């Protein structure tokens, strides 16, 4: 016996869970198949930055759509996911950075970020914790952070309440056809069918797209995270360094319980086979140095945990979103290049809109899978194995 619905989603990260939720809101029936548990991969272990600041103008409409949804989480999914609108501060160590920060601000001026450029004096008055070495900053008052561990599961539960059928610990192993429908086979021998197939398997989607004749140059890496013991809540905004130097890139946020979460300074190895990403101790020690540079008081704290997660990157730093260029009825949303958490709810809303209506109210053309020039491929066989 196989399960059947309007839409079959493979991959229960934030993209899959949010898509399921918004598809149900639009009245389509949904099956969601997740290898392990909802939101246990990148979506559950990321830094938690809900940041529009710094995204290219091209992505701003998608990001704004997400932004709207983030502020309405309690009404939509029944909990706020520790969404905290604290603002985001992007700091530069050089006077010359002011020009670049100002240029960025004007490039996104139509999107309502409300950016302010702050000089040394304003920094002293408003963000005295940051080091004197910071010469200039751009402040984005509406940016926020949230708790990734609970966000995708909250969307998953909300989708289930609306009637989505969610199958955890169910591994999609191969694709086939059942008449006009897609049919997937799971490792434990079950089958799921739908006329529309949405692949939201993050780093794992690359191998799947290849099965449909669409190869993408997807790189798999792990951003490096750490968290300190708690200290009194004092650092409101999320802070990130604006720099070209990889080793200087550091970002941090303090959660209300007091712990400081941080990341940056390069990526470590990650594997889709083991489903794990590791932390390079050398990067951790460099992060310490950068944290002390940025907020000297942090030098008195201790690190209690490091982690990483399996994330996928594309060479143009853009995700893949939209319909397959090769197979009608097949849709993708993956490859979020280290900044998909903020976008997640907007991606879900947009994919649901696209699948339900055939079009989107915001532009997603730059994200077509066809841009990699492999969209000419056709389905090669009726059954493809993934593993």
């Amino acid at each position, binding site marked *: 016996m196989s399960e059947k619905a309007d839409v079959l989603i493979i991959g229960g990260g934030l993209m899959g869970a949010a898509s399921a939720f918004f598809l149900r809101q639009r009245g389509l029936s949904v099956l969601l198949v997740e290898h392990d*548990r909802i939101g246990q991969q990148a979506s559950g272990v990321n830094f938690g930055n809900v940041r529009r600041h710094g995204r290219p103008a091209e992505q701003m409409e998608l990001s704004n759509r997400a932004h709207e949804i983030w502020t309405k989480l309690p009404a939509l999914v029944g909990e706020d996911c520790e969404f905290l609108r604290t603002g985001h501060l992007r700091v530069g160590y050089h006077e010359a950075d002011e020009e670049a920060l100002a240029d960025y601000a004007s490039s996104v001026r139509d999107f309502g970020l409300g950016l302010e450029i702050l000089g040394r004096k304003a920094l002293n008055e408003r963000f005295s914790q940051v080091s004197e070495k910071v010469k200039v900053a751009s402040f984005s008052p509406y940016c926020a952070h949230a708790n990734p*561990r609970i966000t995708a599961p909250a969307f998953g539960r909300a989708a289930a309440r609306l009637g989505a059928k969610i199958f955890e610990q169910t591994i999609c192993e191969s694709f086939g056809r059942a008449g006009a429908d897609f049919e997937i086979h799971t490792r434990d021998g079950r089958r799921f069918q739908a006329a529309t197939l949405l692949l939201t398997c993050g780093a794992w989607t690359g191998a799947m797209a290849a099965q449909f004749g669409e190869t993408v140059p997807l790189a798999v890496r792990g951003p490096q995270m750490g968290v300190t013991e708690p200290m009194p809540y004092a650092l409101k905004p999320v802070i990130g360094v604006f720099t070209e130097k990889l080793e200087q890139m550091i970002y941090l946020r303090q959660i209300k319980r007091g712990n400081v979460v941080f990341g940056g300074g390069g990526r470590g190895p990650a594997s889709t086979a083991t489903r794990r990403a590791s932390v390079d101790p050398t990067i951790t020690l460099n992060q310490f140095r950068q944290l002390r540079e940025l907020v000297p008081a942090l*030098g008195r704290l*201790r690190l*209690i*945990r490091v982690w990483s997660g399996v994330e996928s990157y594309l060479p143009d730093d853009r995700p893949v979103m939209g319909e397959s260029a090769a197979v009608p009825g097949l849709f993708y949303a993956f490859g979020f290049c280290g900044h998909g958490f903020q976008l997640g709810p907007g991606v879900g809303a947009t994919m649901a809109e696209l699948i339900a209506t055939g079009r989107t109210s915001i532009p997603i053309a730059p994200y077509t899978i066809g841009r990699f020039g492999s969209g000419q491929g056709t389905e090669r066989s009726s059954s493809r194995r993934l593993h």
Partner: protein
Amino acid sequence: MPDIVIIGAGPAGIRAAETLAEQRLPVTLVDEGERGGGQIYRRQPAGFRRSYASLYGSEAGKAKALHDTFDRLKARIDYRPNTLAWNIADNVLHTVTGAVARRLRFDAAILATGATDRLIPVDGWTTPGVYSLGAAQIALKAQACAIGGAVVFMGTGPLLYLVACQYVKAGARVAAVLDTSPLSARHQALPRLLTSRPGLALRGLRLILQLRSAGIPVETGITPLAIANDGANVTGLRYRSSSGEIEELACDAVGLGYHLRPETQLADLAGCALSFDETSRLWLPKTDPDGRASVAGLYLAGDGARIAGADAAEISGRLAAYAVLADLGHGVPESKRRALHRAARRLERFRLALAQAFPWPHWLAGEIADEVLVCRCEKISAGELRHAATTLGAAELNRAKAFSRVGMGRCQGRYCGTIAAEIVAATCGRPVDGVGRLRGQAPVKPLPLATTAEEAA
């Protein structure tokens, strides 16, 4: 020359270092403590002048032998005290001394990291005046201090009676010793205890007699209910006796402990396989009888592999060193090795019998009231953990951690992890090995952000 590193300068690590140094192999011995000796033979701080007999009692001879060995050894090995091994991966040990981080490449590493207290929360257990059994003993051994003027020792295991006796001997007032293990379990285990290690078993019985003859109430089969306090300090203790009566006792301090748990984080970080030990209900690193872990080049010895006590630690330290020697192509004295194996098997029988006599009272997991804190670091109650396990559907321990924050604080679940697993298992009606274990994450212990990498040599 191969690079060999040993982590832990307790009985296991010292005997391993000695065995390797005898073969003139270069050894680096890392210990986060200031002075070698480990837990049982913990040395008093410089300036204290208590005799071996007063510090270590019946074990004075062994303590002195180990310390003397270590003092002679120090000049021949690269001994690094005050040095925490905070991570291990790909044949590199990451250490920190003060605020200086170093990388130690190794061909062979012996993990001899010992154990810490295993705890079960009870209402009021975070009140000042409540200590773990180990901490109560350390206060006495290191600082010559008692934890209170009227102390109740509660929990189970041999350490419960040992520490209580050490307190009595030091002149402290012990108000009671309360054991969760039923007397019947001890009776059933007695023949096996006596046949595997008659001397030690009799010494254990003598401890109990000493307590009784000092007029100290010793109860078995109890269920802890609450540690009472006046808002600031411990004032008393409530428990259910084996016959079901609710009893109350006045006291101003409680020493709490239910056996020990091995420090397995380094083994876990190194990728060593762990397996569930039914007897202790703990996840232990898999080893062969010589201490080889599942990852080539890694070896385990002492309580860090399984809780079998100091004598077993010395034996397993020697065996692990022999395994390193053999794997590096050196000769190993076969008859000695076989004798060590025989001794180790006898001590293993004793370990199993002890676990039968003093079972880990996992059934208490269901008794912990919802308001009681399970995770002290993050202040998470049993109720919040149960909510994550049921309403939020986290029937697996790492998932329950992600949702509830249990085990996310400074101790990283070293203290709350084993009982959290029991609570999730009991709540979901699953076997405890079915809910998994908290995955290890670096650093092994909190690492100062002031730490800097040593300049590349």
